[in-house]
C-alpha cells in the first residue's frame, strides 16, 4: 500500500516525535509513505493573516507537486497543514478565475484532484482494519481525545466527523482496548499561533483543556496536531501558572498510542522527546494468552 505524505515543517523539528510515530505505525501496517517531492511550508496562520494570495499559493504549490508526482492520495498528519491544504483546494475548485490566477503565480498546473486525508482518516482506512491481528498489548488507559480546531473546522470544507463532538480518535482508542472519556474541551482552541507572541493567552486556553481532562480522570490527553501538542506539552509551565498547580498529565499523539499497542518501543515512537514525561508503558499489563481472543474483540465500540 503506497500513500503520499505531506509532513509539514513542524514534523521535521519540534514534532519529530509525531513524525517518527506516524512512520513507525505505517511501517508496522505495511503502508509505504512517500513524501511530496520538494514540499514547501503551507504558510500557516501567518500567511492567511497577512496575504490572501500567498496563503493560497503556498498550499497550491504543494498540491501541484503531489499531482506532478502522481500521488493521488496524501496524508497530512499536521492538523493545521491539513486544514490549509483542504481550504485551498476547496476555494480554488470553486473559483475558476482564482484557480487560474494562482496557477499563474506558482507557474504550475493545478488540477485540484488530490484526495487529502488527515491522520485519523489514514488510520481508519489502512490501520484499523489490520489492528486486531497486530495488537500485542491492549492500550488499557482512560484518555481524553483532544481534536482542537483545524481537524474538524471549518466544517463546511472539511466535512470530517461531527464538529462539536467528534468520535474518530475516540473510536481508535476503543479499538486499542482503551477508554475515551466524555469531556468539555474536545474541540476548544489551544491558542495555536499565538504560542510565542501571546504566551499568557496560550497558558489560559491550554490550561482550561489540561485542567478539564485531568479533573475527569484522564491518564493522558491524546492529540493529532503538532501545534496542540507543543502548546499542551511544551507550554506546561505557562499552563501550570494559569491553573496554579503542577499538572503531570502527559500528552501523546494518537499514532504513539497505536504504536504502544503494536508493541513498538518507546524510543522509536519518540516518547522520550516529550516535555511532560510519558510513562504509559508501565501501566500496560500484557494480554494474558487466555484472554487474548477476547481482547481482539473491542468491547465498547459505539
Amino acid at each position: 500500500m503506497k500513500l503520499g505524505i505531506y509532513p509539514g515543517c513542524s514534523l521535521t523539528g519540534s514534532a519529530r516525535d509525531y513524525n517518527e510515530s506516524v512512520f513507525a505505525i505505517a511501517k508496522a501496517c505495511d503502508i509505504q509513505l512517500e513524501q511530496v517531492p520538494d514540499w514547501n511550508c503551507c504558510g500557516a496562520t501567518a500567511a492567511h493573516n497577512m496575504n490572501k494570495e500567498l496563503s493560497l499559493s503556498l498550499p497550491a504549490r504543494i498540491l501541484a507537486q503531489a499531482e506532478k508526482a502522481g500521488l493521488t492520495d496524501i496524508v497530512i498528519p499536521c492538523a493545521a497543514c491539513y486544514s490549509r491544504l483542504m481550504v485551498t483546494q476547496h476555494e480554488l475548485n470553486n473559483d475558476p478565475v482564482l484557480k487560474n490566477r494562482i496557477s499563474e503565480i506558482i507557474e504550475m498546473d493545478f488540477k485540484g484532484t488530490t484526495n487529502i486525508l488527515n491522520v485519523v482518516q489514514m488510520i481508519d482506512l489502512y490501520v484499523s482494519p489490520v489492528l486486531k491481528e497486530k495488537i500485542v498489548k491492549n492500550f488499557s488507559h482512560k484518555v481524553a481525545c483532544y481534536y482542537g480546531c483545524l481537524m474538524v473546522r471549518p466544517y463546511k470544507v472539511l466535512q470530517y466527523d461531527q464538529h462539536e463532538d467528534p468520535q474518530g480518535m475516540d473510536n481508535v482508542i476503543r479499538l486499542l482496548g482503551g477508554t475515551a472519556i466524555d469531556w468539555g474541551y474536545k474541540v476548544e482552541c489551544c491558542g495555536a499561533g499565538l504560542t510565542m507572541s501571546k504566551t499568557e493567552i496560550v497558558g489560559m486556553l491550554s490550561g482550561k483543556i489540561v485542567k478539564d481532562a485531568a479533573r475527569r480522570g484522564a491518564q493522558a490527553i491524546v492529540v493529532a496536531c503538532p501545534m496542540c501538542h507543543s502548546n499542551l506539552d511544551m507550554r506546561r509551565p505557562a499552563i501550570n501558572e494559569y491553573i496554579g498547580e503542577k499538572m503531570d498529565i502527559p500528552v501523546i499523539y494518537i499514532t504513539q498510542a497505536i504504536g504502544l499497542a503494536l508493541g513498538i518501543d518507546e524510543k522509536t515512537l519518540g516518547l522520550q522527546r516529550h516535555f511532560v514525561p510519558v510513562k504509559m508503558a508501565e501501566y500496560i499489563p500484557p494480554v494474558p494468552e487466555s484472554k487474548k481472543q477476547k481482547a481482539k474483540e473491542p468491547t465498547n465500540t459505539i
Partner: protein
Amino acid sequence: MSSASNHEIHVDNSLSGLILKHTEVPVQKCYQCGKCSAGCPVVSEMDYPPSLILRMLQTGLPEMEEKVLRSYSIWLCLSCEQCISRCPMEIDIPKMMDYLRQVSYKKKMVNPRAKNIVRFHKAFLDSIRTTGRLSEFGLTVDYKLRSLKMMQDLTLVPSMISRGKLGFIPEMIKGTKEMAKIFAKTTGLKSEEEK
C-alpha cells in the same frame, strides 16, 4: 446610506461593502444572536467581541470602521473557526477577520498591543521566503530580535535541544527560486534575482 436598516446586501464603498466584494462575507446578514462571541475562546481578551465588530461594520459609519481596523480583536482572532461553525447565518467571520487584518496592516492601523503578533507573522513569512520551509530556530531568533523579547523562552532552548526538537540548520528546498517568485508576485517584495 445605512444598509443595516433594511438588511439589503449590496456592494458599496463602506468597509462592509468591500468585505462583501473581496471575500463574499455578508456582514449585513448578522442579526446579533451573539453565538460567535459566546463561543470565542479569546473573547475575554478582546476589546470588541466578534458580534460587536459585525454590528460596528453594519453601521457603515467611518468612525466605527476606523475603530474596527484599529482594534486588538482582529489580531487576537485565532482563526479557530468556532464562530463560523455555530453561526446560524453562516457568516464566515474568520475570513472577514483575515481581510480586516490585511487592510489594517496596509493602512498602518495595527493596534499597538498587536505589534508582536504582526512581528511574529512577518518573521515566520521571512523564514519560509528564503528557504521554502520554516526553520523554528531561525524564526525564534528573528522574532526575538524584532520584538526585543530576548529572555522569553530562553529556558526552553537547552531542553528542546536535548529532546532533538530544535534544528539549527534550516532545511532548504530545491525550489527556492520558485518560492521567491511566489512571494514577489503575491506580496510585491522583489526576489533576490530581481534586486
